[in-house]
């Protein structure tokens, strides 16, 4: 038979600490923050009169994507001031996701709960702060007592609105990012373990060539994870934009 043994979760998700309380995930986070800032610092240093090329061209295409693909679609012209915040969120999350498919690193930093939780709490604070800044205390009135609802229904609507706006939003933002990346990581581990077990199968030589099948699946899933890494960063950013836009402009 084949020796198929799934490694314990702690081994899949946790590395030895590089220094006390500083492990590989912290390293990926720091690297993501540094690489992201470095790209945009390099791009911003170039001469502004000549046509953009190289790293500046690349940075400009990312900014354009955030402006046209996220801000304009969800907040309109007034939201363009939010571009820096959304841009840095997007770039940081993407750079934390993408080590999941880079050989040797093979771990998305967002597959641990702490980082997505911190980011979504940040978004939570930002959108509630925006609501109070733009509407004052009317923000609470507009979000808890939506206009156009019959008075008697407020008994039902207000608790639902409170839970869905103030409690579920940060939770679902966290779980969406975290669980997607964790699921992808565990899928990759599963197929890698299966393929290794089949290649090293003893007793039945017919099993050895079968190891190619999970290997192809692994390659396909790696390509899929490249897409997921981008898509999750995009979805997190666009939801942050929707929440902020909704807090800045009350629904009528």
């Amino acid at each position, binding site marked *: 038979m084949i020796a198929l043994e799934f490694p314990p*979760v702690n081994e899949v998700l946790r590395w030895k600490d590089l220094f006390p309380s500083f492990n590989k995930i912290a390293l990926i986070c720091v690297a993501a923050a540094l690489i992201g800032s470095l790209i945009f610092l390099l791009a911003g240093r170039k001469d502004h009169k000549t046509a953009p090329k190289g790293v500046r061209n690349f940075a400009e295409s990312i900014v354009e994507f955030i402006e046209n*693909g996220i801000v304009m*679609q*969800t907040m309109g012209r007034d939201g363009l001031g939010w571009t820096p915040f959304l841009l840095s969120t997007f770039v940081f999350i993407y750079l934390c996701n993408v080590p999941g498919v880079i050989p040797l690193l093979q771990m998305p930093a967002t597959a641990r709960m702490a980082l997505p939780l911190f980011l979504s709490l940040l978004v939570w604070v930002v959108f509630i702060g925006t609501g109070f800044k733009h509407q004052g205390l009317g923000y609470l009135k507009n979000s808890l007592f939506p206009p156009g609802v019959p008075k008697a229904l407020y008994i039902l609507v207000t608790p639902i609105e409170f839970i869905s706006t103030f409690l579920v939003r940060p939770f*679902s933002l966290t*779980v*969406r990012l975290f*669980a*997607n990346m*964790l*699921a992808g990581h565990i899928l990759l581990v599963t197929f890698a373990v299966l393929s290794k077990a089949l290649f090293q199968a003893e007793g039945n030589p017919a099993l050895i060539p079968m190891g190619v099948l999970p290997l192809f699946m692994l390659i396909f899933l790696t390509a899929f994870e490249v897409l997921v890494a981008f*898509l999750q960063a*995009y*979805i997190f950013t*666009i*939801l942050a934009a*929707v929440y902020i836009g909704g807090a800045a402009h009350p629904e009528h």
Partner: protein
Amino acid sequence: MEALAALAAVTGDELKAAEAASSAGFAYGLAAIGPGIGIGYLVGKSVEAMARQPEAAGMVRTTMFLGIAFTEALALIGFVVFILIGL
């Protein structure tokens, strides 16, 4: 008779582990049904809308991703429950 004797030999801890494993499977399987139908329907309708009105494709795509994100959350909570009780 033999099967019954084997069943009687199962200790409480083993039974608990077996229950956890099977209910973890059920939890994820059940959680995947609704979002599966929902996302299929959502994307199908979006493709229909994009085919009918290609100039509105950008707007439809953004809304589609938002809808997918909200629908998918249920399946992902199911996945987290699966991890919590299964592993």
